[in-house]
């Protein structure tokens, strides 16, 4: 590649593309992926650092920012080793390119599962260090000195003995032509200046003055806006459409059909929305038209009775130990479908042209979205550009690209760029839901009340079938269904965990906390049942099972102290605890509540203790725990998606209600120091929430919550209660 070349920032992917242009891209070293050892091949190059001759430093963010603070953390990894300050850089969203931006833990370019920090902790520091080393080499060559004589600081290279200084921009072009170091030297953690020190988030200034651009805010020249009518029952089809009234609505431009939805295109959203309301669509409701929550629950129960369990873990002779136990307990737990209800409703802007397609959207799965668009438009993948944006709440919803597929199917029918915005009711009713679960547990206690046998059987659908090409084979364990159950913090001497697959006729998706949100609720609630059956304090009971797990023990002890676990409470008040180790992080949470005679629950206080290994940005860790716990409490208190006549019964924040500020108690988060590798955080607090709440309700009322959302009727004080 020779000569200057203007390129779209989003098209930059390979270091050889950009020499001599407005910007210079650096490659980081190849990521350590055993299946790709060819460090000289283009797919083995990274592309995270770009420096213009003017010294503008752009860092490419492989993970998408949806509130979790990942732009600041990933920029910190790069900046720490590149030796620049966070206020010197700009963060830009990575284009879809799995060869460069795949999450190492998934080997796919997606943001989810609290993996970003764990997966990019080393590769991004290496990319920053590689770029710094190339800049130093370029400066040394310019000066005719040895690189070891040079130092860097805040985006400059210094030759100390002569006092000469060059900016990164001055040598960026030359640096980009130099070999990429194979194994750039990383700073020892003791030398970190950014990592571990509280940093201002880089994404927030634009979010407090209205200038941040989310997908829904995108404006493209010539763009029109559409609202849609979607089959009220999933799986239904458009039979016929009477467009007469809709076409009379002022500002309506076009009416477009696909098999399961109709779009009305307007000069603005309000015209489009009015047009949709004036449509008369006759739907063929399809096979799910009779679906009800009662029928769905009955099918899950039948599967739990009759299905074939797939073993996740078996240790010891569980049946024998159960038979010989001094005491036996069984329980059944049930969790509902959940919608994501992100604040930013689903939206996508697409421009399909004969020679290419552009997509402006906030997505957790850009490569999949790009691939769908290529398939639908018939264009080669490299002709589909996806411009990723800040996300107004992901929680897993934007891990699936069904909504982007719909937008492309409409947009390919018109020549202009088309923005589609779903109404809130569509965002909830046409979500892809967190699965419902039915869990059956049995445990045996020995003479001392310790759990001598632990059996946990989950019955649920698999979310994985929506993510793996070709679905998920029958007879194969989906670990997500048992995560948090087989790998709890506790040393159960005999244990069996298995899963019965039952795919409901409802489309599924991951939801904040994925498998552990469900399993930790079940495990921590049932363990609490065991503690009470044994007549022991729930925290003391847990401690006795934590031999050999010092990190779990430490957070449990910390939370017990900080929450004043043994301080007396008023009647119908209670504290509940939960403990788990998921996403590489250990968390213990105590929730304190009071239950009114009516059964209403008031949250009084939340205390969390967290060991997430090396802390990247301590304040963001606290923020993720604070918000994550409340997110989980909100769902446990209020949320369950139910069906009637195939239709989702909830639609907006009036009937799918969320926790509000007046229901929010004080929250304390205590961080336990650790030098272990950094763990994930986005989902940790959410996982902790429901079991701590359920256990607090038991402590307050003696009522065990085995089904979510919590039925206040169970908690109202009757005459003899």
């Amino acid at each position, binding site marked *: 590649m020779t000569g200057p070349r203007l390129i779209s920032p989003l098209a930059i992917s390979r270091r050889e593309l950009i020499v001599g242009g407005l910007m210079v891209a650096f490659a980081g070293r190849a990521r350590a992926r055993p299946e790709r050892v060819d460090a000289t091949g283009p797919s083995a190059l990274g592309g995270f650092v770009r420096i213009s001759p003017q010294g503008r430093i752009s860092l490419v963010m492989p993970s998408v920012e*949806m*509130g*979790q*603070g990942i732009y600041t953390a990933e920029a910190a990894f790069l900046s720490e080793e590149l030796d620049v300050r966070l206020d010197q850089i700009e963060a830009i969203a990575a284009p879809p390119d799995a060869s460069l931006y795949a999450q190492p833990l998934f080997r796919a370019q997606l943001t989810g599962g609290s993996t970003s920090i764990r997966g990019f902790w080393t590769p991004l520091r290496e990319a920053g260090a590689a770029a710094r080393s190339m800049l130093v080499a370029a400066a040394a060559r310019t000066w005719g000195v040895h690189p070891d004589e040079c130092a860097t600081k805040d985006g400059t290279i210094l030759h100390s003995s002569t006092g000469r200084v060059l900016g990164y921009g001055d040598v960026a072009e030359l640096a980009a032509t130099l070999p990429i170091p194979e194994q750039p030297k990383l700073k020892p953690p003791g030398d970190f200046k950014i990592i571990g020190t509280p940093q*201002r*988030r880089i*994404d*927030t*200034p634009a*979010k*407090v*003055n*209205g*200038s*941040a*651009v*989310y997908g*829904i*805010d995108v*404006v493209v020249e010539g763009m029109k*806006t559409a609202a849609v009518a979607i089959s009220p029952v999933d799986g239904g089809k458009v039979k016929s459409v009477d467009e007469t009234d809709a076409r009379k609505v*002022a*500002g309506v431009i076009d009416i477009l059909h696909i098999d399961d939805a109709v779009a009305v295109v307007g000069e*603005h*959203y*309000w*015209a489009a929305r*009015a047009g949709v309301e004036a449509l008369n669509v006759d739907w063929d409701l399809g096979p799910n038209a009779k679906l009800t929550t009662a029928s769905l629950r009955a099918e899950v129960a039948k599967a739990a009775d009759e299905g074939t369990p797939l073993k996740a873990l078996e240790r010891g002779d569980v049946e024998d130990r159960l038979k010989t136990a001094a005491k036996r307990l069984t329980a059944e737990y049930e969790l509902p479908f959940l919608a994501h*209800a*992100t*604040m*930013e*409703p689903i939206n996508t802007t697409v421009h399909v042209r004969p020679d290419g397609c552009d997509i402006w959207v906030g997505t957790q799965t850009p490569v999949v979205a790009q691939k769908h668009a290529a398939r639908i438009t018939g264009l080669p993948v490299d002709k589909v550009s996806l411009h990723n944006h*800040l*996300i*107004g*709440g*992901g*929680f897993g919803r934007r891990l699936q690209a069904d909504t982007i597929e719909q937008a492309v199917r409409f947009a390919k029918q018109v020549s202009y760029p088309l923005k589609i*915005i779903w*109404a*809130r009711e569509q965002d909830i009713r046409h979500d892809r839901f967190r699965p419902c679960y039915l869990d059956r547990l049995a445990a045996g206690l020995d003479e001392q009340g310790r759990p001598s046998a632990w059996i946990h059987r989950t019955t649920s659908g698999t979310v994985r079938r929506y993510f793996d090409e070709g679905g998920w084979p029958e007879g194969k364990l989906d670990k997500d269904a048992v995560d948090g159950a087989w790998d709890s913090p506790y040393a159960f001497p005999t244990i069996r965990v298995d899963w019965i697959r039952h795919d409901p006729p409802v489309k599924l998706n991951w939801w904040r906390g994925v498998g552990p949100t469900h399993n930790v609720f079940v495990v921590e609630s049932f363990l609490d049942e065991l503690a009470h059956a044994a007549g022991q304090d729930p925290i003391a009971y847990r401690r006795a099972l934590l031999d050999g797990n010092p990190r779990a023990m430490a957070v449990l002890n910390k939370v017990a102290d900080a929450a004043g676990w043994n301080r007396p409470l008023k009647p119908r008040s209670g504290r509940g605890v939960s403990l788990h180790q998921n996403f590489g992080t250990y968390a213990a949470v105590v929730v304190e509540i009071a239950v009114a005679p009516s059964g209403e629950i008031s949250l009084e206080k939340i205390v969390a203790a967290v060991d997430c290994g090396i802390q990247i940005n301590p304040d*963001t860790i606290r*923020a993720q725990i*604070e*918000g*994550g716990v*409340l*997110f989980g409490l*909100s769902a446990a208190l209020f949320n369950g998606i139910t069906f009637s006549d195939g239709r989702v019964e909830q639609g*907006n*924040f*009036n009937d799918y209600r*969320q*926790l*509000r*500020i*007046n229901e*929010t108690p*004080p929250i304390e988060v205590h961080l336990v120091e650790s030098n272990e590798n950094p763990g994930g955080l986005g989902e940790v607090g959410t996982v902790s929430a429901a079991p701590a709440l359920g256990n607090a309700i038991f402590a307050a009322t003696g009522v065990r919550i085995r089904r979510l959302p919590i039925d206040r009727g169970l908690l109202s004080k009757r005459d003899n209660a």
Partner: protein
Amino acid sequence: VISININGHDYAVHAPDDMPLLWVLRDLLNFKGTKFGCGIAQCGACTVHVDGRPVRSCMLPAANVGARKVTTIEAIGQTESGRRIQQAWLDLEVVQCGYCQSGQIMSAAALIERNPAPDDTEIDAAMAGNICRCATYARIRAAIKSASRR
């Protein structure tokens, strides 16, 4: 044609009589900071000020605003209360995804404008109409207190 004053400037827009202020702002005048969340005044993401009072722009027809003055997130920093709230939001790192925060800031700025030192109960009452799915509520409360103490 609807005449409307936004952030101190007069605009004339062609809009249907029932078109909510939210969509006039977003789609006709390109003030994208005010957000669409629910469309039924349940979440507060669309909060703007009309003559200094917080209102849900998703249900207020622009035609009904009349001569009253509309202030949006884009201009709230020009008021003392708005500036203090925005600074407190940054100082306490309130924001996560940020989508609801325009509305939160508008409600909070209106609160401290009429009540310079609100207590927890007053904060909760004024802010209960604004949902945050990231649940940044504890920091919202702290930031309002921080802004009001100055």
